[in-house]
């Protein structure tokens, strides 16, 4: 096994990535960011093992268990089974898994899930209120729930806007009812990011939400070369994550995986660890809408305030995002 003595004395926060790798600019990355921040604040050292293939999950988990990590962070549904097995085999270790929930819950695993559609709903509403062409678009990486939940929320947000304002803003690239739409089928090719955004723009979209990790950077790049084209970022605030093209991010659908992981680490290292499912919502700011930054004056102030109240309505349940 992979046990080496270096620093097994002090506390460790350990992440096992899925096959996307730690530099996926997506959930592996934000989980890692949270782990690192927590490690810094609580004087632990952060460790990560990248999984190259399915077969690696079990091994990576085991080597962390051997290292006696205080919290093992696993990322994504692919690690669902492996994490469950490891947790059951090692009741004394603590785990937390991103984007996954067990039912019934496992004693020593904390699931971290996010109602991303709540935030995406708001983004859709903003986009619908801001578009000049009356058409907005979105595309995804792979047709899987953690991706399509963004697209569902986005489209429903637009529809809600149309319903409110009697407008007819079109959304290209996703149909929540048939669950079919436009997908790059990868989370790597920035060139696809360009191409898919371009084809949406060709059809008149002027605001695009790419839900495909780094692929979106390609779309942002394209947008920054054209004028009047804006991007809605996902997961993290594109304005900060992608400084080159900061100016074209209308807003971003925040999915604060980092905060959730940080919180879990906090619990684990300070003896308050529970296996209660963590659900990121607008309410607990596990998900949210990023500020408009440079484009603030592009979003009419009354639209801004409508978004604020819409947020409260969603939190209060007055408006349902799963429309």
């Amino acid at each position, binding site marked *: 096994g992979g046990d080496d003595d270096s620093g097994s004395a002090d506390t460790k926060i350990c992440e096992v990535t899925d096959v996307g790798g730690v530099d996926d600019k997506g959930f592996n990355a934000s989980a890692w960011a949270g782990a690192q921040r927590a490690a810094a604040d609580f004087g632990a050292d952060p460790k990560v093992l990248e999984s190259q293939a399915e077969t690696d999950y079990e091994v990576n988990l085991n080597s962390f268990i051997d290292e006696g990590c205080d919290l093992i962070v696993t990322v994504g549904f692919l690690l669902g089974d492996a994490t469950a097995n490891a947790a059951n085999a090692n009741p004394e270790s603590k785990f937390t898994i991103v984007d996954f929930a067990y039912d019934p819950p496992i004693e020593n695993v904390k699931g971290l899930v996010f109602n991303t559609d709540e935030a995406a709903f708001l983004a859709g509403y903003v986009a619908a209120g801001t578009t000049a062409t009356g058409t907005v678009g979105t595309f995804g990486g792979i047709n899987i729930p953690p991706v399509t939940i963004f697209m569902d929320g986005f489209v429903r947000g637009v529809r809600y806007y149309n319903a409110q304002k009697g407008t007819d803003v079109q959304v*290209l690239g996703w149909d929540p009812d048939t669950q079919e739409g436009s997908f790059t089928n990868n989370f790597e090719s920035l060139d696809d990011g360009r191409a898919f955004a371009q084809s949406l723009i060709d059809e008149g979209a002027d605001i695009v939400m790419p839900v495909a990790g*780094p692929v979106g950077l390609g779309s942002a790049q394209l947008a920054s070369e054209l004028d009047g084209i804006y991007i809605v970022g996902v997961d993290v605030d594109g304005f900060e994550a992608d400084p080159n093209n900061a100016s074209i991010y209308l807003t971003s659908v925040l999915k604060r995986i980092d905060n959730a992981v940080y919180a879990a680490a906090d619990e684990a290292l300070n003896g308050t660890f529970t296996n209660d499912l963590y659900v990121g919502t607008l309410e607990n700011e596990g998900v949210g809408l990023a500020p408009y930054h440079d484009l603030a004056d592009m979003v009419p102030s009354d639209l801004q305030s409508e978004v604020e109240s819409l947020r409260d309505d969603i939190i209060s349940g007055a408006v349902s995002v799963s429309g």
Partner: protein
Amino acid sequence: MGHVTTVTATATTDREIRTPAEVRRAKILAIVYLLLAALTLWAFGIGSEGDATFVISRPGDTFEVGNIVVPAAGLAYVVSAILAFLGARQWLRGFGSRTNLVLAIGLGLFALSFLAWAAAGTSFSLVGMFQEAIKRAVPITFGAISGVLCERTGIINIGIEGMLLGGAFTGAIVGSTLGAAAGMVAAALVGGVLALVLAILTVKYRVDQIIAGVVINIFVLGLTSFYTSQILVENQQLNDAPIMRAFEIPLLGDIPFIGPVLFDQNIFVYAMYLLVAATTYGLFQTRWGLRTRAVGEKPRAADTVGINVFSMKYWNVILGGLVAGFGGAYFTIGSVGRFDENMTAGRGFIGLAAMIFGRWHPVGALSAALVFGFADSLQVKLGILETPIPSEFLAMAPYLVTIVVVAGLVGRSRPPSDYTAYVKE
């Protein structure tokens, strides 16, 4: 005796005879036409209503041109009729030397009808799609031309994929640090170095050419992935190259449809046009070309007239590497400025297919690459026209087209070279 031997000239006679293989192939092709006709009729014709609106100009073009509106069903009926006719004619007489041309036209019509069906009831931008097709053809063309240069001197270059990837990687890093121009040069150079390795392995050590190429692919993939995770992840500033913007060529750019599609592109596209022209002229009009082809076709013959076979092979392969490396820079400097593991995703191999499809001729290679580019941009486009086809299948399109093309045509195309390692005692 002059006259005696001229009698011997060719053992042919007036009696026109086709090989059984030819006949079989012709019939198969005919059946393909008929199947396409049936498919068009059944899938795109019957029961599909609504007009498809093809947008062929962009807002802001110098000359705005009206949209083309076609009834999907109507078009399908016409196309399937034509295809059926082609099939019948193919079965009865065949098209002789024009077979491929006709096939291309037939497939084009089929694609058109397919589009009309997909876009029925909505509108979509042909300009956009063709523009995208050209962009996507760029790395494929560079790969294919690289292949042509190598194979014309008798070296199979399976390593194109690796050279593209190496170029992309280098372009990103050098571009980020020393600027785009330096990035493109460096990318080309890296391609050249990889090609040199290929040349040494195959020419000097007589390693099986295909193995050598595959080695280069695996090696570059491993190396770039290793350094990406090892260096680029922590040092994003090394992976943030400037990007070549598209610029419109005066006048040409104003031609309706053609203009925006062909002449409002970035430097790589224009470089592609130049490259194709240059290699075509070079291969068939210059001394270098004659010698290159001689070395490929019959190395010993070239050797006996004092041509240095080895250095010809070395230089042409290296040249091919430079081309592939530069083409690789398209992925980063020419498109998104950022390198990602295995971002070439098989384009190098599609380039090889394009080379074969294009019969080892630069212009042929370009046309073939455009077909793939089209298939590629088509799948992007179809995603947003809610077609019932799952996106995973759309994503297969370029690869399927490649297989169909190679299977359909390589059988009949004769490689221009003797690929066996040249031995000199």
